């Protein structure tokens, strides 16, 4: 616990960037749901069964079996986390000049595509860019946009379509099963792969169960399998859905891609049967994957996020609708309408939330969007958001109440809040380390 004075001091020292705060100065940490889950007693027991052999660890085979069983992919390569898998797949499939359509960008994904010489193209439905639209499947692909890209560039220039379940940058929004099926049909016609960015696939599947017509009777586990079956491969950060603190993997149904990935993973990550992970962490991942599709778990998980979201909604706090599955995304543009985008309203709001009660959140707006690689100007995203991401199984309902009260307090004094300016800007992924000053 900290006092307001201590938090003012800590925030200043951190350059008004919540990423640069020390964890010990944070009361409730909503920076990310990535790697912050509490593991189960079963996972901890698995940790004790780690086989730390350099090659052929039994934990690898358990992980491989869990992925095959719950996700259905044929070949897998463990990586130390999701970005390790993104690095591999981008290097293997993308040639300079290629176009990679996707249902909205994600920071590290887009960067790896660009580093391999590709260009990301957004094909998400327009509703995704409108914080107020209540469309239930804002993660959907606009098939016309995808068709237009194929017509313009030719299928040969599109190594794969990147499909995220759920779409983080849109506010944790799901894609519908029907939409993914349509994407599969179109890509099949043109022999284009779908690579699945599957970090929150269970949460996406649960939303399909809740909201999509004709899906209510199915188990989340079953829908997860079907989602995966509509794609050709996947990258996963297991630090989200799969309830571990570290780990990820690359999965593919294509032998050639697997073979190339197996050769390259040794250079970047580690031998292909550990990929930069301790044996025990592969075991925890295998167990976490099976827990992630458990019906009671997923209902409680998404239910807790909805509890917080509904509380804030009832208080009139502007936010992305519908409520996402892994967090509540505050609409900073509507929250602070008097702060122009170049004065970083979301960054400012994140700083204010920390000051009020020590709740750490993350900017997902102009700072995260970075600069256009051609013009060098800022990218100006439609959505200027502050993400309140809820770690899995970590906080209780009482914590949710504290958060809701704090957001309301800040909202009540919103008119007195001024923007910020950036005084240090790193070249890549600037949001991690940029520093600011209050205006």
């Amino acid at each position: 616990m900290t006092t307001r004075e201590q938090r003012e001091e800590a925030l200043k020292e951190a350059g008004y960037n919540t990423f640069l705060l020390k964890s010990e100065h944070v009361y409730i940490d909503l920076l990310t749901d990535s790697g912050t889950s509490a593991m189960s007693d079963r996972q901890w027991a698995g940790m004790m069964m780690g086989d730390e052999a350099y090659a052929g660890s039994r934990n690898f085979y358990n992980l491989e079996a869990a992925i095959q069983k719950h996700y259905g992919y044929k070949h897998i390569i463990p990586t130390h986390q999701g970005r390790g898998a993104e690095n591999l797949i981008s290097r293997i499939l993308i040639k300079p000049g290629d176009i990679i359509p996707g249902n909205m960008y994600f920071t590290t994904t887009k960067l790896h595509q660009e580093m391999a010489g590709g260009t990301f193209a957004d094909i998400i439905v327009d509703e995704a860019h409108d914080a107020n639209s209540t469309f239930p499947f804002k993660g959907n692909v606009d098939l016309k946009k995808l068709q237009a890209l194929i017509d313009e560039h030719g299928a040969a220039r599109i190594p794969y379509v990147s499909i995220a379940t759920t779409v983080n940058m849109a506010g944790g929004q799901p894609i519908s099963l029907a939409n993914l099926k349509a994407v599969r049909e179109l890509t099949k016609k043109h022999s284009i792969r779908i690579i699945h960015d599957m970090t929150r696939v269970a949460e996406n599947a649960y939303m399909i169960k809740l909201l999509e017509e004709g899906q209510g009777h199915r188990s989340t586990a079953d829908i997860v399998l079907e989602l995966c079956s509509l794609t050709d491969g996947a990258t996963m950060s297991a630090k989200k859905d799969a309830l571990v603190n570290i780990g990820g993997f690359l999965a593919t149904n294509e032998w050639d891609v697997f073979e190339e990935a197996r050769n390259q993973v040794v250079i970047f990550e580690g031998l292909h049967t550990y990929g930069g992970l301790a044996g025990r962490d592969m075991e925890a991942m295998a167990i976490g994957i099976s827990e992630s599709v458990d019906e009671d778990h997923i209902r409680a998980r998404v239910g807790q996020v909805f509890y917080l979201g509904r509380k804030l909604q009832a208080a009139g706090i502007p936010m992305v609708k519908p409520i996402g599955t892994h967090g509540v995304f505050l609409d900073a543009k509507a929250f602070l309408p008097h702060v122009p985008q170049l004065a970083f309203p979301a960054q400012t709001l994140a700083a204010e939330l920390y000051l009020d009660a020590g709740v750490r959140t993350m900017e997902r707006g102009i700072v995260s969007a970075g600069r256009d690689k051609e013009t060098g100007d800022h990218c100006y995203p439609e959505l200027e958001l502050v993400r309140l991401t809820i770690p899995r199984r970590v906080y209780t309902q009482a914590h949710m109440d504290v958060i809701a009260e704090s957001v309301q307090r800040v909202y009540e004094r919103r008119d007195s809040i001024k923007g910020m300016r950036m005084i240090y800007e790193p070249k890549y992924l600037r949001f991690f380390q940029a520093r600011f000053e209050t205006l």
Partner: protein
Amino acid sequence: MEHKTVIEPFKIKSVEPISVSTEVERTQYLKDAHYNPFLLRSDNVIIDFMTDSGTSAMSARQWAGMMEGDEAYAGSRSWERMEREVRDLTGMHYILPTHQGRAAERIIYGHLGGEGKVFISNTHFDTTRANIEFSGATAIDIPIAENKDTALQHPFKGNMDVAALDMLLKEHKGHVGAVILTVTNNSGGGQPVSMANAEGVAAICKHHGVLFLLDCCRIAENSWFIKHREDGMEGVTYREIAQRMFALTDGAVMSAKKDALVNMGGFLALKNEALAEACVNLLIITEGFATYGGLSGRDMEAIAIGLQEIFDPYYLDYRIKSTQFLGRKMHELGVPLMLPIGGHAVYVDAKKLYPHIPSNEYPGQALVCELYKLAGIRTVEIGSVMFGTYNADGTLHPAPMELVRLAIPRRVYTQSHIEYVIETFAEIMKRRDTVRGVKITKEPRFLRHFTAHFEPLP
């Protein structure tokens, strides 16, 4: 009384069962693994001497630290603890955590390397060489001449050839990425590097204005040799010896999976701010944010504690002396070895053991297969499979030595396991004339030893 017996300075709190197999079963397992032990299932291995990397048994204190891991994405307490510990040991200010050593290597050598650049080392390890060559640069090894003669006794056979370094730095002026001193010198037989040699290298690097980096994954073991073999160092503690060596350099790369007694982790430590800033950018893209670098909080705790434990004199004494016990016994059996015995492993000279097998039939790989079949002992070839290249006409350009490494995991096996290995070597010696070589049936472009397939020759 003074005891001659060196005991393991620990007792065992938690055990991991070994699944014992028969020779008939192992013959099949080996065939299924295409005669490449990297492709064996660990469950089918009895004594795993493949590597000392990431295979250590952690201490009770480290496991307690694991329970205290702070998994916050940014600014984790566990990171602060690790950063403090690494700063204190290395004397360097900029510490970048990485998921393991090769990630630290890729970041620093990727940044310093590229087409036309040259890296010079006492001996580049396999992943180091791969990272450097992957960037388009060239890796040059200049161990001292004594290093090539496996039978020759020399107290610091891991040393770098200082005269050759001076010449190379003149020759490649303006194109040198870095000079890398690996302690101990792993591919060169796990041989130590003396403080005097490190000082010599540092002076020449300074004179030529090139970056001097330490690959410090076995720095504590190297310190043991310095204390016991180098004049004037008897009174200095192991930790101080390590600190003196760090002080000579501009930066260090560490795979914490070796001397730091952990199963996962590494770091890059630098003195120069601008270089550190460039590396942090690469770190965030490929590894993770600057305060976790792809490690869980608990693993950072374990590294911080492990870095303290490695300098314990009783631990280091047991570690080095138990390795030497195995080496001495094998030597007495007449097994041709790389001498003197190094710190973390015993290296068998397979060229001498199997003089009838030419390099292009990979005598080291043949021994590796024999050891597994006879006793379920998994080892690794460090010879022409790992370092061989092809000439333009497709013939093999062999590695200078054909070694097989028996790398001993830290705090994992007891003396009776070692006796079992010695007994196996007595049998290996009996059968040496009947063993045949192998041929490669399939290989990838980089680091082929990890995934290549083999077939025994008739």
